């Protein structure tokens, strides 16, 4: 066991260890429990960062690989590794979880039961991180499903009024998707190559096989459809998004942050990691449709945002739009597009995560999320909170120089001329839709800022004399705010990582 081959395993499962430890803590030791959560997520983050530092740029192929027998009966292996595309998401997962843990030091939803809450959060962390480093379809699927259960409870127990409906809907919808996904996996498994006599779930093997055109055309069409459906629900792509607003609106702040910050990425990551490389022909055939849905999603979501009265719901819908840009980038099947997608994922993770933090804290003060009830003047009475909120919102509308910009602009740029074989005119149409989307996005965000931040604070609130941002919030927010700027100014941080992977992938499409 060297650091090279054990790093991932340690890092990924550390949170679960934490969960176990926490479960054995006595109820009364509330602060200790919260402390432990911070410690474990922190430790995991440290490891993850260490890995990131030790990561060799530009070297294609996996690093920190560990590949051992797991379930020989069906030829499933414990194959984990990390490459430029997964690394950012992997680190992002740990960063957000850590910040969430810190945030929980002060904010745990009314339902209480801190132990369970944090334990579930840690479990969730492992599940999410695992999806990004699994290189065996079954392992991937296991992590994928592992995420469902804790999130289901996080929403269902600690959510707000309509939590039950939301949690069930979230669970069933995603499960519904993943059933098809699993079907697709198994289809690939059975018609894929055999490694010493046994079929294999190994993603690298299958990728190589698929890249070599191993799967028949019709097969690819069918299977890509199934797999894509699974991922599309998770992303969520229009029109499979309806679980998202409910889930977000009902989930506790932490839940929303992780949901938007990481979980949605699992879907898009699936496209990049599994759907495209393994089923290139399928991808090429479906790309225009994906692009179309993405384009619709962008405009649709921003229009829906304009209609929102609930702050959190508004941001939830905005996620749909942003993920639309990510999907648009993927749909172009070009290097630029895919890199844009990955960048978009990370950026959206940070920015929208941050937005949900803000909304959570605003709710904590006002105990309402109704924009009309808040009634403006936030910036007048709570300048710091209001300012940060406005800043993040502006970052989210894709202001150049901030993180939100690169994903969006590169996605649009790539759709100006998609991969060979794709209909240029069509994709330029999508690009234009995207452009319109950016305007509308600016529209609803500025309108939101106007209605929440600006103007004078209504009497009834001024009586309350809210406190402005508190220490815990500063600690858990500053890293995100910093990253919003840093990624904006030095996008190379991500782009250098994704370069090789994306090029290899787009090579399949002559892009």
């Amino acid at each position, binding site marked *: 066991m060297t650091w090279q081959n054990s790093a991932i395993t340690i890092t990924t499962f550390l949170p679960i260890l934490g969960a176990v430890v926490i479960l054995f803590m006595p109820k009364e030791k509330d602060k200790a429990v919260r402390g432990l959560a911070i410690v474990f997520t922190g430790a995991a983050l440290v490891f993850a960062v260490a890995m990131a530092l030790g990561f060799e740029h530009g070297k294609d192929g996996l690093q920190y690989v560990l590949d051992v027998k797991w379930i020989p009966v069906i030829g499933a292996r414990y194959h984990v590794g990390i490459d430029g595309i997964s690394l950012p998401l992997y680190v992002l997962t740990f960063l957000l979880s850590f910040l969430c843990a810190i945030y929980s030091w002060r904010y745990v939803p009314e339902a209480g039961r801190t132990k369970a809450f944090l334990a579930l959060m840690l479990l969730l962390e492992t599940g999410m991180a695992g999806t990004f480093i699994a290189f065996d379809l079954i392992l991937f699927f296991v992590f994928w499903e592992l995420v469902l259960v804790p999130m289901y409870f996080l929403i269902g127990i600690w959510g707000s009024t309509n939590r039950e409906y939301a949690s069930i*809907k979230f669970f*069933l*919808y995603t499960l519904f998707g993943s059933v098809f996904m699993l079907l697709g996996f198994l289809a690939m498994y059975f018609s894929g190559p055999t490694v010493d006599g046994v079929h294999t779930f190994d993603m690298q093997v299958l990728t190589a096989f698929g890249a070599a055109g191993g799967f028949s055309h019709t097969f690819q069409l069918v299977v890509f459809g199934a797999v894509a459906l699974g991922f599309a629900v998770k992303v969520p792509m229009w*029109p499979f*998004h*309806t*679980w998202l607003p409910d889930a977000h609106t009902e989930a506790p702040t932490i839940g929303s942050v992780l949901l938007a910050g990481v979980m949605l990425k699992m879907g898009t990551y699936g496209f990049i990691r599994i759907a495209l490389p393994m089923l290139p022909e399928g991808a090429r055939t479906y790309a225009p449709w994906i692009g179309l849905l993405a384009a619709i999603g962008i405009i*649709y979501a921003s*229009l*829906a*945002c*304009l*209609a*929102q009265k609930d702050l959190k719901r508004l941001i939830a819908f905005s996620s749909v739009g942003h993920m639309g840009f990510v999907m648009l980038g993927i749909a172009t099947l*070009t*290097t*630029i597009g895919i*890199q*844009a997608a990955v960048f978009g994922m990370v950026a959206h993770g940070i920015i929208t995560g941050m937005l949900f933090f803000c909304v959570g804290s605003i709710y904590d003060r006002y105990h309402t999320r109704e924009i009309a009830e808040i009634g403006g003047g936030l*910036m*007048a009475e709570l300048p710091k909170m209001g300012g940060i909120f406005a800043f993040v919102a*502006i970052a989210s509308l894709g*202001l*150049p*120089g901030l993180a939100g*910009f690169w994903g969006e*602009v*590169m996605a*649009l*740029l790539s759709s*100006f*001329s998609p991969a060979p074989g794709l209909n240029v005119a069509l994709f330029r149409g999508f*690009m*234009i839709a995207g*452009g*319109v989307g*950016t*305007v*509308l996005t*600016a*529209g609803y965000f*500025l*309108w939101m800022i*106007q209605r929440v*931040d*600006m*103007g*004078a604070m209504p009497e009834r609130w001024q009586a309350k004399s809210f406190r402005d941002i508190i220490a815990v919030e500063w600690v858990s927010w500053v890293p995100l705010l910093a990253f919003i700027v840093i990624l904006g100014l*030095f*996008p*190379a941080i991500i*782009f*250098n990582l994704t*370069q090789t992977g*994306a*090029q290899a992938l*787009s090579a399949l499409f002559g892009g």
Partner: protein
Amino acid sequence: MVAETVTVSTGAVSVFLKYAWVIPLLPFVSAVITLFFGKRTPGRGSVYGIVFVGAACAMSFGVLWHFIQGGGPYESAMSWFQVGPLHLELGILVDGLTAIMLVVVCFISLMVHIYSLGYMHGDKRFTWFYFVLSMFTAAMLTVVISNNLIQLLIGWEVMGICSYLLIGHWWEEKENSNASIKAFITTRIGDVPFMFGIFALIAATGFTTTSIRGVTEAIGMPGVSALYVSMAAILLFGGTVGKSAQFPLHVWLPDAMAGPTPVSALIHAATMVAAGVYLVGRLFEIFLDASPWVLTVVSVVAVITMVGAALLAIVQNDIKRVLAYSTLSQLAYMVGGLSLGAAGLTAGFFHLFTHAFFKGLLFLCAGSLIHAVHSNNMSDMGGLRKKMPITFWTMLIGSLALAGILPFAGFWSKDELLVVAQETHHYWLFAAFLFTALLTAFYTARMMLLTFYGDYRGHASPHESPPSMSGPLVILAGVTTFVGLLGAPQLGAVFGKWVFYDVIEAAKFVPWIGLLGTVLAVAGILGGYALYKTYREPDPMEATLGPLWGVFQERYYIDAFYMRAIVLPTRDKLSAGVYWFNQNVLDGIVNGMAALARGVARLVIWFDRNVIDGVVNGLGDLTGQAAGALKFIQSGNVQWYAAGLFVGVVALAVVFIKIA
């Protein structure tokens, strides 16, 4: 980031050029410092802005000096990062055009920084104001100096957001925040095609570079179709239309006057709005390579804007709006100039150059007036000549410049434009220029008369502004007086040597045109004097214009149209519709699925209860035995199970033995 450097330069490279990249950096640094330490420093942080921008200003003069000495352009860049095949750079491209812009931006910005000391004194968000001001300056300088399109786009957008923040500086008032949103969205609408234009250029290079030199070369390639270039050009021009508030995206600028007056001076008169013009100049190659109709389109837009806006300027009561509309039409002047082709570039930019100074001056004067009388409305002014002499004299100079009276700046630039138009046989543009000149002179006179003559109609007790404000006025007035001579043919029109498109056009002085221009200007002024020498309620124009008055007051109903036909429907109706669809159709389907599953379950049970048992119930009734019937209305009857068992066997047997 490896700092590999590309350098293209002709002739000696002065140290100023080498370090020109510092120029945009300085205000940026000041912005950062102001943001984090401003509140804690005495004077609430204004000092940083002034010092750093001052430094930048000095440097930019240094840069200009290089070109005054006849130095050549200079470009250097370091690679920033790479996406796929596309190399992005951070770089600078300095030529005469850049140098001029640098000077203008830095100088005016410095003036405004100083002026604001007085104007914004005691403002709630004084420090913040300075932060944004510096940030804006940095962004604008980035746009000016950048050697590649993405970097330019970034500066471009940051300017936009700064303008948004400054317009909405007093966001406690809803109108202000409305105005700021209007400004941002409107310009953004222009920016989208602009962005696509950039994409088109980058794509033309095969996604290899974004540098301006690179794309212009690529466009020049034979492979690129004229249509492609034309489309790209038109798309790029969209950016200009948005930022420089040309028709049909002009609507935001008048509202933008909601911001503090120094901001209007800097952003909405001198610099940002000029960025659109600058952009066309920067990418002039593209426009020339494009089919002629592109420039025609440009000129049409210009004409509409210049005349339309000038007409509106006549009927405004709010002094800032007068200037705003005047700005619109002057910008259109420049755009029109550029639309004249290669020859027009120099002229257009000369007007940009002079306009920046005198319009900046006028705005600052207006600011000083407003500062004094606490109102924007000229109906609350009048007779301030005595009370505010400095403001009066400086504003008089500005106005004469605007009206185009010798020897002030405006005269020279206008004259040059007229000459070029006439020489390149763009007669109707020539006509438009002349007509606008007339109108300009008229409303300028009106403005001066309404504010400084007659007797005071306001309520506050006006007094001359503090030196921090009057100082910049005087300086600018001075500049305005003499800067025009830079383009004076009699003096060799040195300006043309700095800013030109591949060949230096010798600026000519055509006496009859000069005379014609002056005559019209004077006529305008006299006309104004005739109408406004004594103040009258209601405005005499109302009678003169008749029905048109209302139309003008309503800005040709364009804003109203946008609001009713586009904004509100989208914001309220369409969005609501989409959301309804989301909740009832899409979500309906999802919930429907769940319901369906439950339904099927119910169905199966119903089947069990009513078909399996129900058959029997029916028969029970047939046998007419009430008792029997009751007995059968029971499920869980074991004999039915038994029957089921046998039927099952027999059925299976029959079916499958047949098959086998």
